[in-house]
């Protein structure tokens, strides 16, 4: 099997796996997609994954298929994007059409309810680990003081003022675009003042 086919194969397997193991809609599948793309196959760095996720969150539409499409595109262009989305959604779409006749059995079954409930804590752990890793990146990049200030600001805007996440992301992106320039300027002025004093 040459490399190109191997990559198509890995992409399909990764997307099928995330598609059939992600319970609870888009957000719960994000840590699984990250595991395949960042940890297992190293198709992208965590930074890039975070950035992709942020921009995907700022755009409308289902989140998991946007992520699948971008990962596929990054690896294999348009063909990769189409393949990733199809392999991610097809198993559950087929099951949906095939199983409607047994809907009442499935949705009232205690075994099915128990299975879904059993996965919720696992998903919570995966989301928590991801939160920790993005928080660590923030502190590494911005330092403790500014990092914590940014957490508080993000929390305040999202959870207390209830500003739409898309708007919060756009605000932070806007500041981010001038962050390094501002920081450099601030440092320079600070230095000048110090030397004036001396």
């Amino acid at each position, binding site marked *: 099997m040459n490399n190109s086919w191997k990559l198509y194969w890995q992409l399909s397997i990764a997307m099928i796996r995330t598609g059939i193991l992600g319970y609870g809609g888009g957000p719960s599948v994000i840590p699984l997609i990250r595991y395949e793309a960042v940890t297992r196959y190293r198709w992208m760095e965590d930074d890039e994954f975070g950035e992709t996720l942020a921009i995907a969150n700022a755009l409308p539409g289902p989140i998991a298929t946007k992520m699948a499409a971008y990962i596929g595109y990054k690896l294999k262009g348009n063909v990769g994007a189409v393949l990733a989305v199809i392999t991610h959604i097809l198993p559950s779409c087929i099951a949906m059409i095939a199983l409607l006749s047994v809907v009442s059995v499935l949705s009232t079954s205690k075994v099915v309810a128990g299975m879904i409930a059993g996965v919720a804590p696992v998903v*919570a*752990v995966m989301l928590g680990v991801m939160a920790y890793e993005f928080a660590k990146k923030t502190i590494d990049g911005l330092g403790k003081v500014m990092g914590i200030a940014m957490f508080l600001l993000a929390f305040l805007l999202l959870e207390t003022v209830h500003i739409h996440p898309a708007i919060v992301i756009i605000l932070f992106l806007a500041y981010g675009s001038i962050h390094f320039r501002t920081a450099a300027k601030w440092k320079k002025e600070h230095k000048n003042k110090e030397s004036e004093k001396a």
Partner: protein
Amino acid sequence: MTVWIQLMIGFFLANALGYGGGPSSIPLMYEEIVSHYHWLNNQEFSNMLALGNALPGPIATKIAAFVGFDAGGWVGMLVALGATVIPSAAALIFLLRVLEKHRHSLVVKGMTLLVQPVIAIMMVVLTWQMGKSSISSIGIWHSLGIAAVSFWAMEKLKLHPALVIVAAFAYGGIVLQHSM
């Protein structure tokens, strides 16, 4: 033919206006599927949603596949899926391509850095919500126990999350069904 165009418009609108992923689009889909085009009635919609929630995978595409197939056959399914997935995926790819070109500029580096705290907070909130709903459905001890074992398995033993999820399914199907 008309139904295919209607499927395209209906699913495009429901998803293009839904922010925050699939689940937030459900009320908009209800509007198109039940109120506007009458592809399903209220009872059928809630049956479909129950089945969709019992199956894995993204919810928006499961609904699109089912309603598209029901209203317009296999072509209908493809049209509804395309209208759900393609516009937002294309927009994301386009935006990231623009960023990729300027990957090494300080502007893009700053943007990459400053979205991390927002993502971290959003993940904390999701963790909290997922934990809360788990505790209210299976109680605090089951939730904490499964969480502790899965943390140990994934972070210390470095097991593939798929194995952990399959194990959690098994535990849920065998043990938790009695507390449902």
